[in-house]
């Protein structure tokens, strides 16, 4: 029955057209007039020919150049002819000049490019039939466009190591490498890791880590996409597919609250890879972290729950959806009849539409005991919000609380950019975390950190939203100057849940109060959506005791988490690649989530579950259009939530925990066979993965 709900949230959407899109007026710039292939154009001074040509839809081939890495002048395939210059010029490092006449397509240019291609193929193994890049390889494409049909090579090709195990994520084929050094430069410029280097010299050169250690950090996978050929390949995708057999969906990553845009490629219903959206300047700056890229295997994990489960005195038995929904409704009604409180917790891992409906249905049922907070975080919406681009341009960045490096990985890449390339000052009030490998100052207290701020310029505070007294200090200090905040939330849609109203109102209980009420025997039924307080709550034992004391606990989940194991009823949910809707990220952007695969038979989205529950109560529901409109409106207008005290004085129980990593948090890494295989390789320390 439930599968028949016709309540899908529509088709793919572009970034929602709301107030959250902030357009900046381009700075007035001096324009230069030139002609490319006979077409006159005007571009800002300083533009490189390779970029200028794009404006007239003319592609200059490149290997080493990359918009985000800048010119390197190594591959020499980008040759163009500039009238008045005797030699061919490289388009990647030649800026436009007034009156310049450029040819990107003529016999001389093609001959030069042809020579470069011919040379690149002298030692290339040409093992395209077994190369993952086949079909989307720049060497194949340019060889077709500029190469010769035949070869003069009469000598054996030089052999180099193949199948090199570069690290937990990547296998390297040295023979396919065209030594464009994109990977090396990325590791240096973007990731600030400098692990990758070119070793040896001349035609013997190879790509390797400087130390010989495995190539491992939070952003390794990006090099597989920067690599123009099939030299760097992802272990998770090796030998899996050809690009033309993949069905591609653009969506937002929901593994954390950054919300990176990504392409998800599936074949016959299984997710094979996630790829970066290079044009996404706004959110991801074109990158993904390794979690967002690789942690997609859990969707088809064997231990996924695919049937509602009823806890029959300690044994979980399968029940049908009809029974599950009516048991759920019955338990709520009975609790209400008995004068007991009911409540719902969740939203930070749901889509906006679901979070909205969650509070809508439960408010209609008659409770204000609603909260998205189930961990340690108290607040997700900053007093003064800003974009990730603001972060890039900040004069100073104040980092307070738990490592944003791990909580909001790709946002951390912007911090690197701000500090290493734009000269921002980074000040940390460090928890006991490892020091970042970029220039920074450590302060012992928030007060000291504030005293170290430069007198002028924009300050961006990156905070974890945990300690509200810290939040108040920052808010007050920033009120008098050009400052804004980004709260690196622990749940991907925390800010969305807050905007959708998943907060106690009119005297309703927050999570801590609900747990206390449970302890006093006052809570009759509690519904949990995608939260695992038994692991993540500031005091997990308190959460456990509360759930054990609550007569009827409903948990919507993908896996049998610590929390689900204490449930009366477990509802098998769909994950973000299996449903469509929107989320709000750290910067307040309303982002689309588009389903790329169908969930396993037997699972429902939380939205569908809530519709089912509402029907049990005979409640009126918004139409799809109404829901969409409401969500957009709320996402755009939701202001900061006044800093509240959460969980009373017990909010800041300090629980000893290992340093968090990007694999932590979502609870999914441990269920992803690909990630656990990396684990088996001892590449990710076991204690850092959520069990």
């Amino acid at each position, binding site marked *: 029955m439930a599968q028949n709900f016709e309540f899908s949230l529509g088709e793919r959407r572009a970034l929602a057209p709301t107030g959250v899109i902030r357009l900046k007026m381009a700075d007035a710039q001096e324009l230069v007039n030139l002609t490319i292939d006979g077409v006159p154009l005007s571009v800002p001074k300083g533009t490189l020919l390779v970029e200028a040509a794009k404006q007239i839809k003319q592609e200059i081939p490149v290997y080493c150049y990359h918009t985000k890495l800048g010119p390197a002048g190594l591959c*020499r395939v980008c040759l163009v002819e500039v009238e008045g210059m005797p030699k061919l010029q490289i388009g990647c490092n030649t800026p436009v000049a007034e009156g310049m006449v450029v040819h990107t397509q003529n016999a001389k240019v093609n001959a030069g490019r042809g020579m470069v291609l011919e*040379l690149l193929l002298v*030692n290339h193994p040409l093992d395209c039939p077994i190369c993952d890049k086949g079909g989307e390889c720049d060497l194949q494409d340019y060889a077709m466009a500029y190469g010769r049909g035949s070869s003069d090579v009469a*000598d054996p090709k030089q052999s180099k190591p193949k199948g090199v195990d570069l690290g937990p994520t990547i296998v390297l084929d040295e023979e396919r490498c065209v030594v464009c050094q994109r990977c090396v430069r990325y590791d240096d410029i973007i990731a600030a890791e400098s692990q990758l280097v070119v070793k040896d010299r001349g035609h013997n050169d190879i790509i390797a880590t400087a130390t010989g250690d495995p190539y491992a950090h939070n952003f390794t996978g990006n090099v597989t996409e920067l690599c123009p050929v099939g030299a760097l390949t992802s272990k998770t995708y090796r030998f899996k597919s050809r690009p033309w057999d993949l069905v591609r969906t653009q969506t937002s990553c929901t593994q954390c609250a950054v919300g990176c845009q990504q392409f998800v490629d599936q074949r016959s219903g299984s997710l094979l890879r996630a790829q970066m959206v290079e044009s996404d300047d706004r959110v991801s700056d074109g990158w993904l972290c390794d979690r967002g890229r690789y942690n997609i295997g859990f969707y088809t994990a064997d231990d996924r729950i695919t049937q509602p489960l009823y806890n029959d005195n300690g044994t979980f038995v399968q029940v049908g959806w009809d029974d599950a929904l009516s048991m759920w409704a019955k338990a709520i009604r009975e609790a209400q009849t008995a004068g007991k409180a009911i409540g719902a917790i969740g939203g930070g891992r749901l889509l906006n539409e679901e979070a909205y409906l969650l509070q809508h249905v439960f408010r209609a049922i008659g409770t204000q005991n609603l909260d998205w907070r189930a961990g340690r975080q108290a607040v997700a919406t900053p007093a003064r919000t800003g974009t990730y681009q603001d972060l890039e341009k900040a004069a100073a960045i104040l980092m307070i609380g738990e490592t944003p490096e791990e909580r909001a990985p790709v946002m951390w890449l912007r911090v690197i950019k701000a500090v290493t390339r734009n000269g921002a000052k980074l000040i940390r009030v460090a928890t006991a975390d490892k020091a970042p490998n970029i220039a920074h100052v450590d302060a012992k207290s928030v007060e000291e950190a504030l005293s170290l701020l430069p007198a002028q310029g924009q300050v961006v505070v990156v905070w974890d939203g945990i300690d509200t007294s810290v939040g108040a200090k920052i808010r007050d200090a920033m009120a008098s100057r050009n400052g804004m905040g980004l709260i690196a939330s622990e749940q991907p849609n925390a800010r969305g849940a807050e905007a959708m109203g998943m907060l106690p109102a009119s005297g309703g209980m927050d999570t801590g109060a609900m747990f206390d009420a449970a302890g006093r025997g006052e809570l009759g039924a509690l519904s949990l959506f995608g939260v695992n307080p038994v692991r993540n709550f500031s005091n997990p034992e308190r959460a456990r005791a509360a759930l054990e004391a609550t007569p009827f606990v409903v948990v919507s989940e993908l896996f049998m988490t610590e929390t689900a194991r204490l449930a009366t009823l477990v509802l098998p949910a769909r994950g973000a690649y299996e449903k469509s809707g929107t989320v709000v990220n750290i910067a307040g952007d309303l982002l689309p989530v588009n389903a790329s695969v169908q969930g396993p038979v037997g699972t429902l989205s939380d939205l569908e579950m809530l519709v089912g529950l509402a029907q049990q109560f005979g409640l009126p529901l918004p139409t799809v259009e109404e829901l969409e409109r409401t969500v957009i409106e709320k996402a755009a207008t939701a202001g900061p939530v006044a800093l509240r005290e959460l969980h009373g004085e017990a909010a800041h129980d300090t629980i000893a925990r290992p340093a968090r990593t990007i694999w932590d948090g979502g609870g999914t890494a441990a269920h992803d066979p690909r990630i656990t295989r990396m684990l088996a390789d001892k590449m990710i320390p076991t204690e850092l993965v959520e069990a």
Partner: protein
Amino acid sequence: MPVTKVLTEGIGEANLRDIDVYRQRGGYVQWERAVRELTPAQVMEAADKSGLRGRGGAGFPTGRKWGFLPNNGKPRYLVCNCDEAEPGTFKDHMLLEQTPHLVLEGILLGAYGIGCTHAYIYIRGEFKEGYEIFTKALADARAAGMFGKKLFGTDYSLEVTAHRGAGAYICGEETGLLNSLEGKRGEPRLKPPFPAIAGLYGMPTVVNNVETLAYLVPVLKNGAEWFSSVGTERSKGYKIVSVSGHVQKPGNYEMPLGTTVREIIEIAGGLLPGRKFAAVQPGGQSSACIFEEHLDYPYDYESMAKAGSMLGSGAFTVFDDSTDFVKAAFNSVRFYAHESCGQCTPCREGGHWLERVLHRFVEGRGLASDLEMIERVGTTITGLNLCALGDSIEPFLISVFRRFKPQFEARIQREEAVGV
């Protein structure tokens, strides 16, 4: 014979490594005079007016090069290039070992002329002895108050650091040198920006050859006109020519620019008995050969260019009729393939490919189809590279390939490759 002794003055006669001997012979007088009496602009003007051109290979006018430095208040650096790894060139390390204080005085003058307070000398890794000699000279000169803080009672302070390379030809290329000096991989940098704008540690930098800087000493002593009155119209002054190959007395000979090719061969004792002249490579391994028809060309920058070659670093290698030019070409290409840093495609792949093909010719296993390939690939890669090393593969190879084609044809075994 127009052999002259300017920089080489005293070498072989006196122990110029001894600072006292050097000073007794007038050493450091120009330096002290410059700091006490001349402005940096006057030193720069002398360099400019003398017509002195870079002796490192490119022959770029020294004064003009200094003039590219921007006046932006940033610290400037002078780097003396003593990498000298080009086959056939052996003048700089002779100066370094025989007259280290002259080299140092040149560096000091250059540093003062561009207004720098910290100068470097990058010494080729293999010059262990030269490095030690120079380090001793540095210590002696410092003790004598020739550089350091508040020189000669003025406000001018100057530091000099000697850095020994690790041994790679490409570290002689000025931007490869700067990377190496900074502790990075010795790879040439993408230009622009040029070192004058962003060089050592990103600061405005001049890189000059040892011989170039050393000539500043006699230029200041005798005046710019003294230097510019010698030589040809646009190639002024003197040059140390490193003569090698099939001559009776190979060695370094200093002479006015404009001496003819034939005279240089004679200065070096002439050809070996019973041999006939075949070719001269007049400007180091990167230069094309010139032939009989060029014997009476004056040895200067313009004439060598007119002959299809270049004066380069002044390495002058003579080949007689006993030369196996297939082997010589192979040897030259092998050198470049070995020394290529590997950054850019044409140099990395082209050099290596040509090396393998020529190796087959040396072994008598050439293919007729290779002849077209050598010509086509050899010439096309020139001009496509990031630095001049890649563009240096062609000149010697193609000049002898064209001139002595029968030697190559004689090594052909088959028409084309068989099998795969």
